[in-house]
Each structure stands twice: as structure tokens, then as C-alpha cells.
């Protein structure tokens, strides 16, 4: 961007590979050359969020290894009775597919955003929000089912007491992230629909004009929520 100190009027291709890393990070320059600060800061926020979820999964691992009481079998705990037979983990599998689909629609929304196709972008973002809301709804159903079966943060009928606290903490924090994502998706979709990014209308909170890149930054957050679910699905539900 023109205002950075690195811009001195002439252009030479930046080196790539390891040389590129050294060149980008050294000598008091802007480190992220072709990434706006909005996007870079979203990445750094997601990095810090990674550590939060990492710590949750780590403490879950520690609790599960160190307990001498058998861990409840998630395959049976999360089974649903459909058509007279227990299908293991079926609700969690559907939730996974719903969240992956919402990631797909979000990626396409970003694409249409850069083409300034307001209608398609807004519809795809609202579809993403709807899938996210579906996910949260299914999670609420799952919580209700487990709570009625007697799962509490301090104990459950099937085994190690830490199961409940790990479950409520990890899935609750993830569900909160999805809920916040749905709210922001609706806000950004409304801005796209109204044409804020084309008209240069200022945001109600930052008082700054936005760009269609905001859709991509929103997308980064949403894909991260999907990414975290990949790890929760693997470590908490399947392990």
C-alpha cells in the first residue's frame, strides 16, 4: 500500500521461499507485504483463539489420561435411536456436515463479494448464517439430551466425572463462537445487501468505510470455527 515506508516508487519482485521470509521480516518494514492490516489482525486473533482451544483440548487430554475411572464411550453416549436401532454419533456426523457446508457457502460468498455481486454474496452469507444457526440448534438439542440423561460438570452415569466438564466447556465455547459468527454474518450480509461497500457508507462502530475484503475477513473467522470443530470432532467425539 502506498502509505507504507517500504514503497519507494520503484518495484522489484519480492524474493520467495526462506529468502522471502527473511526479507519480509527484517529491517523495520511492514512484515505482511500484500495482506491488509484487517486481514493480518484477524489471523493474529485466530492464532490466539487457537491457543485457547488448544488449552481446552490439552486439559481434556490431561484429565482423560490421568483418571483411573474409565472414560465414557462417546460412540454410545452420542448415539441416537432412529428407526428402532442405535446409530452411533449420528447427530455429531450431521452437525459436521452442516458446518462443512456452511464453510463451502462462505467461501463462495467471498468469491462473489470480490466480483461485487451483492445479491449472490448476501444470499450465500445468509445461507451460511442459517446453517450455523442449524448447527447451534442441534448442539442445544444434544446438550438437552445429555442433561436429561444426568450429565453434569461434576459427574455422569457412565464413568469419569471429568467427562461432563470437558464436554460442556469445549462444545460450549465452540458453540459460543458459532453464535457470534452467525450474528456477525448477518451484520456483514446486511451491509453487502445495502451496498455499503460500494457506496462507501461508514460503519456504525468504527465510523470507517468498509471494503469487500471485510467479507473475506468474516470468512476467515467462519472457516476457523469449522476448523476448530474438525479438531473437537477428532479428539472429543471419535478418540
Amino acid at each position: 500500500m502506498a502509505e507504507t515506508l517500504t514503497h519507494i516508487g520503484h518495484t522489484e519482485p519480492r524474493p520467495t521461499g526462506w529468502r522471502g521470509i527473511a526479507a519480509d521480516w527484517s529491517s523495520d518494514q511492514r512484515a505482511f507485504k500484500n495482506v491488509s492490516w484487517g486481514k493480518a489482525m484477524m489471523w493474529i486473533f485466530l492464532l490466539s483463539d487457537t491457543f485457547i482451544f488448544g488449552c481446552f483440548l490439552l486439559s481434556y487430554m490431561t484429565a482423560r489420561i490421568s483418571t483411573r475411572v474409565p472414560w465414557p464411550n462417546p460412540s454410545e453416549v452420542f448415539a441416537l435411536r432412529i428407526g428402532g436401532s442405535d446409530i452411533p454419533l449420528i447427530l455429531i456426523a450431521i452437525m459436521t456436515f452442516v458446518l462443512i457446508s456452511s464453510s463451502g457457502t462462505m467461501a463462495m460468498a467471498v468469491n462473489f463479494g470480490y466480483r461485487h455481486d451483492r445479491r449472490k454474496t448476501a444470499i450465500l452469507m445468509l445461507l451460511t448464517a442459517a446453517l450455523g444457526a442449524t448447527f447451534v440448534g442441534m448442539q442445544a438439542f444434544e446438550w438437552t439430551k445429555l442433561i436429561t440423561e444426568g450429565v453434569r460438570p461434576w459427574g455422569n452415569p457412565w464413568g469419569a466425572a471429568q467427562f461432563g466438564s470437558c464436554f460442556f466447556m469445549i462444545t460450549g465455547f465452540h458453540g459460543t463462537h458459532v453464535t457470534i459468527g452467525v450474528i456477525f454474518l448477518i451484520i456483514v450480509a446486511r451491509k453487502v445487501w445495502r451496498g455499503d461497500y460500494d457506496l462507501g457508507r461508514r460503519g456504525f462502530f468504527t465510523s470507517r468505510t468498509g471494503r469487500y475484503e471485510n467479507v473475506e475477513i468474516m470468512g476467515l473467522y467462519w472457516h476457523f470455527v469449522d476448523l476448530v470443530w474438525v479438531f473437537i470432532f477428532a479428539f472429543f467425539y471419535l478418540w
Partner: protein
Amino acid sequence: MAEATANGLGQHALHAAAPAAVARADVHQQHPIKLYLVVWAWLFILSTCSYLVDYFGLHGYLRWSLILIFMILKAGLIVAVFMHMAWERLALAYAIILPPILVLVFVTMMVFEADYTLFTRLAFFGAGP
């Protein structure tokens, strides 16, 4: 503020003003829709595979390694394609991806710590109820 003004101009104005400064300007991540659909399909296939690991009740190291392989492939596809990390400069990719990998050191420490906790619990309280 200079930055606010530059942002207000929008990307097109910036590109028009400095067509040669492509390497310095913020790059839009625009890729064919087909790529996203292919990745979407792969994520479905990989999720189905990891679900089938549980459905068929695989156990032991086979189960754990399959879970990890499908998990890493899915995470890789999401970060690389959906989050466009594959097209970013390495300076950003390493700054973001390297720190979470270093968490594995923490994981190793906690495995030893948890094993020790289990050992003391078994030694002082005996086997579980």
C-alpha cells in the same frame, strides 16, 4: 489519516494509481468457484471416512492413526484453500501456522505429567471403582 484516505479510495483506485506496485498492494484472493466445490466434496468424503472409523468400531492404533490422518487432511484443506493460506506469502503462513505446531511441545509435557498423576493415583488410591 493517510491510511483512511487510501482505504476510502478503494482497491481499484489504488491499482489504477500505482499499476506497477502490484507486489506491494493488497492482493485479492480470487479463485475459481470450481476449486471450492472440489474442496467441499473432499471435506465431505474425509468426514464420512472419519465417521466410518467410529461406525465400524475400529480400535487401537489403526483407529487413532486414521482419525489423525483424516483430521490433518481436513484441517489442511480448510486452511490452505478456504482460508487462502496456500496463496499467501510465507512470512504470514509461518507466523500463523508455526506457533500452533509448537503447542505439541506442551502436549508432550502434559502427557508425561498426566501419566505421572495417574501413577500416583493408582499407587495411593488403587485401581478405579
